[in-house]
Structure formats: C-alpha cells, structure tokens
C-alpha cells in the first residue's frame, strides 16, 4: 500500500514553483499524481492514465444492484450502474454512488483488535490491542469448538458468507445463523412473506409489476425510496408513467413521502386503517363490477372504514371509480402499513384486493419472484420477534460466542429489546465490522472484513427483477488495510477444504455452468468464472415470473380492526421511516450526510415532522427542540413544520443517531428506534406504526441545516400584511 507519488512528494519534486502555481491558480494538485498499488499487477496502460472498469455488486443495501467501478492507477474513482445487470440496468441510487466514501472512509478499522472488557467497555471507549490474523483465526477456531454456544448474526448481504456460515453451522452442529437488517424491519418483509404464504400458498416478498400497471394504489409503499429494491422499482415507476396511457399512482399514507409526492393522488389516511380501506375498496369494487362482494370484503362497513381512515366516503368512491376504469390496476402494501398489531390481516386484505382485481400473474400485476439460479427456497430475514428470542437466549447465557457481520444490532434494534444489556451475558462477541460501529465498539474481538469494493462474493437477487440471477462481486482495488475477508477467516478457522474464498465461490457457482438460457455460457468453470467477473454476475435472459395461486384468495375471511382512536389529545402516532438517503448504514458517508433529504432538504441531522397547525397548537416553531416520549424511551429532536402530514401524526426518519460509526456519523441526530417497544404483529414483525408518543417542549433550539430557503418556500421571516 505505498503511495508511489503522494501529493507531498509531488510538491517536493517541483518545488516552490508548483506550490505557488497551485495557490495562484486556485486549483490543488490533489486529483492527479496519486497512485496506489492495484489489486493485481497493473497493466501498463493503467499506469498511463487509462481507466479500468470492474463489475461488482453494490453492498449498500440488499437489493443487489450491479455496479461498474471505474478505477485508475489502483484507485477506485467512480461507481456507475452495470448496464447489463437486470436489477438496475446501468442506474444507481445516491447510496450506490457514495459507496466510495465507505471504501475511503478515514475511520475504517485497519487492524484486527482485541477489546478488553475493562471499565471502558460500557462507555464504548477504545481499549484496543492489535492482534495478528493468526491469533484472530485461532480465536475463531476455539469458539467454533463449542458449537452449542455459537451463534452467527449476519446482515442481509453478502449471500456467499451466509451460505458458508450455514454450511459450517450445519457441519459443526451449531444453531442456524440469523440474518437481520433494519430495512427489512421497516419494510415488514416477514409479514408480507407470511401473507403471501397464507394467500397464495408460497412465502415470498412478491414482485409487483409496476412498469405495466396503469393504476397503482400504494399503501405507504415507499418504493421510490428504500422499499425492497428502489432502483428497480423507480425504473418500473418511470416505465409506468411512460406508457401510452400514463399510469396513475395513488398513495395512501399519513405523511407525504417522496413516493407520495410523485403520486397523482395522495390521501393522508390514519395509520392502521390501511386494511379497512383496502377491504372497503374491494367491497365497493366487487359490488359495482360483479354485484356481490366476496367473503373477504363482505363484512366491512364502508362508511365506518372511511371514518376510521379519516377519509370522505366520496374519496373511496372516487378510488373505486379509478379502479373500475383501470385495465391493469395494482395495489402495493408498504412496510409501515403492515407494521401494526394486525398487520398480517392488512397484508392479506391488500393481497386479496389484488386477487379481486384479477391482476395475479398478469402484466402490471403481482407475481412470485423468480427462483434463484442456485435453486434456493425463500429465505427471509429474521423478524423482530425472532430477534427478541435471540436476546432471551443471550440473557439466559446460552450463547457463548456471538459472531456479528454486516449488521449493527446495537444501533438497529429497538433499545427496549435489551440487546445491549444482554451482550453482557455473552462471554465473547466477535465482530467482523468494516467500520467501528456501535456493536463493534462493544465486541471483544474486531476482525475487520474488507469493504464491499475490496471483496469477493455473490448476492442472490430475487427482488426487483423477473430474471433469475446471481449477482457477482469482486475486489476492484487492493485492500487498503490489514483487513481479512471473513470468509477466509472462517474457512481457515473451521478447517473447510477450500484454499480460499475464490475457490469456495467457484465451487458455489459451479452448478451454473451447466444451466442454459443464461446471458452467456462457458464450457468450463474457469471461463465461466472469468465471464462471471466480467459481467458482474450471471442471469437468465428470459423473465421467469410465476403467477401466484389465486384460488380462494378472496374467499378467506379477514379479521380487520380499526386502530382505536387516541384517548389523550396530546398523543401522536409516530411514523418512523428509513431516511431515503442514509437508509440503515449510510450515515458515515459525508456526501450522503450532505445530500438533502428529498422532502425536507435537511442535511446532516434528524428532525421530527409536525403538521404546522399542530405545531401552532403546541406553540412550536421550526428548529425548536422537543422531547418525544414513548412508553419505552425518549429522544430530543428539532422540529420541522412539515405541511403535508396528518395533524395527529408525527414522523422521524431513521438513519442518524449513531454513538459510534466514525466521525461523520457520530453524535449526529437521534435514533428513533430508541422509542420502539417490543410490540409485534401476528407475523412477528415489529408493530412500530402503532406507537404513540407525547411531545414535550424543552425550550431549546437547534437549527436544522436545510437546503431550501425557509423564506422562499414557507415565507418564514416575512411578516404577513
């Protein structure tokens, strides 16, 4: 890792002349003349300033978009979308673009370390001693010798690590690994999967064919922001709008999200009433189309549903008219809509409505996601209830060694779950984190993995595309620091018969060589492997979506309830949504911090959105710090008077509030997960949308950095005449 000609050397070389030239011309010499040793020996043209492009897979979320990374002289310079990749077809989101700032983050972990559980343990202070990798592997190997006490907790990406860990656990007889990600929690993926199992007989996150629908009614699905596979769904949205007759988008949610801002029609319905609204729509639609409502919707009282949702009856009738008018209507269940006590029923109602509309397996309708070419069955992330069970096991002292990779449970899990407290009962916590996140700070050993752009791997991509595919990852630059691939560590520690990660991966993808209908084919594994790296994965040319089994979907009775009206006037529904820019792990990338939130244009901090009228009633102004109190916790956060949110709802974005995780993330904003309690819905997902909070004034003020002008946009500061 030598800087062959660093900026300083360059200045030395050309002496005072260049230094003054730099000052005089206003341009620093930083961008050129910085070279690094590349991963493989650089081809000569690379020394000469020509770029090399590597295909890999984005690790910023689990959607698995394909990236092409431009590298030059051993440096990764720019990420672009992989134009062949079926998920994103050459496009990226802001997080994908900023992934380089993770790679070059100044706060990355550089060495394997041991953290003694001394006094500093609780405060998260560093008391680290560097260890070498042989010791590290020995530690892991020792831990694996007690299989009953081993528990792996993995993130949603990468899949090859999960496959390996699962195999290891199976071999040594340890409990199966658990995967968790905060985005999955906010999308209530488990609930959606369970609803699909109940309605269609197969658990699945389902594929919603936005591109071909001409009317989309979305129950709070923020598919333009973070929902499941945002780049793919944004493309679907774009195609929907570009159809011969422009598709119509209707958004039903309490707050005008970024997705709702693009909707033609937005109805701020009360949280928890989504199922009733769906059922009422189904009833009205069926009655007008077929003259009779199916069993699922029969029982619903339309007027009462409208009342519960805070809608005019007229609005429901208009929506029904739109549905009757549409050729290819589609209804999408969003995460917050399902995160209620009876979320599973809501999901079922929405899926039943789709079935009623007859769009199952039709263009512009609902499909089962394609089966991965590796032939895997549906694998969902852990629900919050399962995480709570894990915490129970930790508390009971059943877990001797907890391995954590790709997930930051101390930050992402609600504090009320007691994960952090339970860690004290776990003798050894080993983190494979790339960054010094909250969990890593509490670990006994941190054995840092490479950054995603320095890593091999693959990701099964089942959402966002109809083509069965396996997305491949490869290192685009040489690892910067003394980090080691977790797969290599585990291979060495578990003594598996693979030389290294690449051999393991080749072994995994070997079955694909036999498969037909691929984007490319190769005679043998080495040629296939080369092509797999070249194109950043392997996928089938044809769309292989299957229609859900609609039989009886509308005939099952639903048990829908309205959320009881709030008794106390000063209580508000709290809507927590993942920040569209930061999502779960973007907070340590300064450019993501500085990208304004699409709706509020706030940068670098957290805020609470309150309806201006409500704020006026409470005597609150912009930037006033309020104390948000739930039965399980409290946070202090600045007010943003948001003109498009229900007066009885307040909203806080999730993504900030780190206590560790590097200089750009630390001590910035608040973590709304601190407010959540252990309330689950029938499927086990966190019922976070049921949460009610009180708002207390603190008298403090903390100004939010926003891009928009309060004067120009809201007229603030101009006296009314």
């Amino acid at each position, binding site marked *: 890792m030598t800087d062959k000609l660093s900026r300083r050397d360059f200045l030395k070389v050309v*002496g005072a002349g260049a230094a003054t030239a730099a000052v005089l011309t206003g341009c620093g010499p930083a961008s050129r003349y910085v070279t690094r040793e590349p991963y493989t020996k650089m081809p*000569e043209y690379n*020394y000469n300033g020509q770029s090399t492009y590597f295909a890999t897979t984005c690790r910023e979320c689990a959607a698995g978009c394909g990236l092409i990374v431009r590298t030059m002289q051993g440096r990764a310079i720019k990420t672009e979308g992989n134009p062949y990749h079926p998920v994103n077809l050459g496009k990226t989101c802001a997080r994908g673009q900023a992934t380089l700032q993770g790679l070059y983050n100044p706060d990355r972990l550089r060495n394997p370390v041991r953290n003694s559980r001394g006094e500093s343990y609780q405060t998260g202070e560093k008391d680290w001693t560097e260890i070498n990798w042989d010791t590290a592997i020995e530690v892991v190997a020792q831990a694996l010798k007690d299989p009953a006490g081993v528990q792996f907790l993995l993130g949603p990406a990468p899949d090859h690590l999960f496959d390996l860990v699962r195999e290891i656990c199976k071999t040594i007889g340890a409990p199966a690994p658990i995967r968790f990600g905060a985005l999955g929690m906010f999308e209530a993926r488990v609930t959606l999967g369970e609803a699909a199992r109940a309605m269609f007989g197969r658990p699945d996150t389902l594929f919603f064919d936005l591109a071909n629908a001409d009317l989309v009614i979305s129950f709070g699905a923020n598919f333009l922001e973070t929902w499941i596979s945002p780049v793919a769904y944004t493309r679907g949205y774009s195609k929907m709008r570009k159809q011969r007759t422009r598709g119509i988008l209707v958004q039903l949610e309490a707050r005008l999200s970024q997705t709702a801002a693009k909707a033609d029609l937005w109805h701020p319905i009360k949280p928890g009433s989504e199922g009733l609204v769906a059922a009422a729509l189904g009833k009205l639609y069926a009655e007008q189309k077929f003259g009779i409502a199916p069993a699922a919707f029969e029982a619903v009282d339309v007027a009462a549903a409208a009342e519960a949702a805070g809608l005019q009856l007229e609005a429901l009738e208009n929506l029904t008219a739109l549905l009757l008018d549409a050729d290819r209507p589609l209804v999408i269940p969003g995460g917050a809509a399902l995160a209620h006590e009876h979320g599973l029923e809501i999901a079922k109602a929405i899926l039943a409505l789709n079935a009623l509309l007859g769009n199952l397996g039709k263009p512009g309708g609902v499909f089962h996601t394609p089966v991965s070419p590796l032939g895997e069955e549906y694998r969902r992330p852990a629900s919050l209830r399962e995480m709570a069970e894990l915490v129970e096991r930790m508390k009971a002292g059943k877990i001797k060694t907890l391995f954590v990779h790709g997930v930051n449970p101390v930050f992402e899990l609600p504090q009320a779950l007691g994960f952090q407290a339970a860690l004290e009962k776990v003798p050894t916590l080993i983190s494979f984190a790339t960054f010094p996140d909250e969990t890593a700070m509490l670990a006994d050993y941190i054995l840092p993995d490479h950054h995603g752009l320095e890593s091999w791997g693959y990701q099964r991509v089942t959402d966002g595309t109809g083509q069965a595919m396996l997305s491949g990852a490869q290192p685009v630059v040489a690892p910067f620091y003394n980090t080691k691939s977790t797969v290599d560590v585990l291979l060495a520690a578990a003594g598996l018969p693979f030389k290294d990660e690449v051999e393991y991966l080749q072994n995994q993808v070997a079955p694909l060589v036999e498969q037909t209908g691929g984007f490319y084919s190769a005679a043998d594994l080495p040629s296939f492997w080369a092509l797999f790296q070249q194109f950043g994965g392997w996928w089938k040319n044809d769309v292989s979506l299957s229609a859900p089994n609609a039989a009886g979907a509308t005939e099952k009775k639903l048990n829908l309830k309205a959320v009881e009206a709030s008794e106390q006037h000063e209580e508000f529904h709290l809507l927590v949504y993942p920040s569209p820019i930061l999502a779960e792990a973007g907070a340590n990338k300064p450019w993501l911090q500085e990208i304004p939130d699409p709706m509020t244009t706030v940068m670098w901090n957290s805020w609470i959105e309150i309806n201006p009228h409500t704020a006026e009633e409470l005597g609150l102004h912009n930037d006033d710090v309020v104390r948000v109190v739930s039965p399980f916790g409290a946070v202090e956060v600045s007010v943003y008077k948001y003109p498009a949110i229900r007066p009885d709802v307040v909203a806080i974005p999730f993504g900030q509030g780190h206590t560790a995780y590097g200089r750009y993330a630390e001590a910035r904003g608040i973590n709304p997960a601190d407010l959540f309690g252990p309330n689950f819905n029938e499927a086990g997902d966190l019922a976070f949308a049921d949460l009610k909070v009180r708002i207390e004034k603190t008298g403090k003020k903390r100004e939010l950095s926003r891009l928009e002008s309060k004067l120009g946009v809201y007229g603030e500061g101009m006296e009314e005449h």
Partner: protein
Amino acid sequence: MQRVFELLKKKEIQLLLLIAFMVILSGGAWALYQTQIPPEQPIQFPHDIHVQLQIQCLYCHPGAQRQASAGLPTQQKCWACHGQLRKYWDPAAPVPLEQWPVELQKLAGYVERNEPIPWVPVYIVPDHVHFNHRPHIAAGFACEQCHGDMSKQKVAELQQTINMGWCITCHQQNSVNDPQKRIKLIDCGTCHY
C-alpha cells in the same frame, strides 16, 4: 524622519542595504532555479543510448498514440530486453549481477522485488490543465518538436517552459487557415475543466 535621512547617508548603511537586496534577489533566483532543475529519477535512464539503438519513442511511451498520458514504462518492459541481453546473459559467460552497471542493478532490484519503478514525471502540467497527447500525435507532431532531441539527452530534462503562452502560440500558428479548428484550439474549455 530627519534621523532616517541622516542614517541613509552613511556608507555602511548603504552597503548593508545593498547586501540585503542582493540576498533577496539571489534567494528568488535560487527558488526559480529550483523549479527548473530536472527531478531526481530512481534510475538514471540514458535516453541517448536507447534512441541510438533505434528504439522508437512509442515503444516505451505507447500512451501518446492512444490517450492523454504518454505513459512511463514498467519494469517488465525494461526487463523484456535487459533480461535477455547477450552482453550479460550469454550462456557461455554470464556476467554476475554485481558486475553490471549500477543503474541496471537498480533495475534488476525492482524486478526482483516486483516493485514498480517510481519514475518521476518531468513534463508535468498543473492540475487545472488537461493535456492530451493523442490529438497532438494525430495531428502529425513528432515527439522531438516538444521534447527535444532525445538522442542528445541522458536523463530526460525539460526542454520547454511549459506555460500557457507556449501552448497558445503554437495552437494559433497551427490554425491560421482554419477558423473552425481555431475555435476549438483556443477554446478555454479544451484544456481547462
């Protein structure tokens, strides 16, 4: 004030002032000279010998034809020839490494350690200028028009004062009869972005 005038009349003071002036002047000259000396190279590469051996410029600097930077050879390229020179590798009487010329020993060292040779660029333009070799070669310029006759230089030295006046004068002279070309050649955005 009066005293200052009086002081200025003294010979010693005048001499002192002169010395101070000379020191400042020579300091400036030294600083200017520092910017002009060729940089220290890791290997004292003799261009003249290689040019006399009829090796084309583009063999070692192939980038000039295709891209912005002409490129500097890697140790593999050097070793491709030096690794089989009959002079040293004659199977009958191979010369041991210690008896090779010092500069070649350095090269062998880089090859052995598999390290890239940290060549120091001689012709450098500031970060705000984006020079591109390809169009210049495509327009039919010979290397020596800018880089001088390399058969007379050992280690590469700067043959031109590389500044904007030099660039723009040449650009104008070469677009006298072609207004279309001139528009492109004197456009600020052609080099500065």
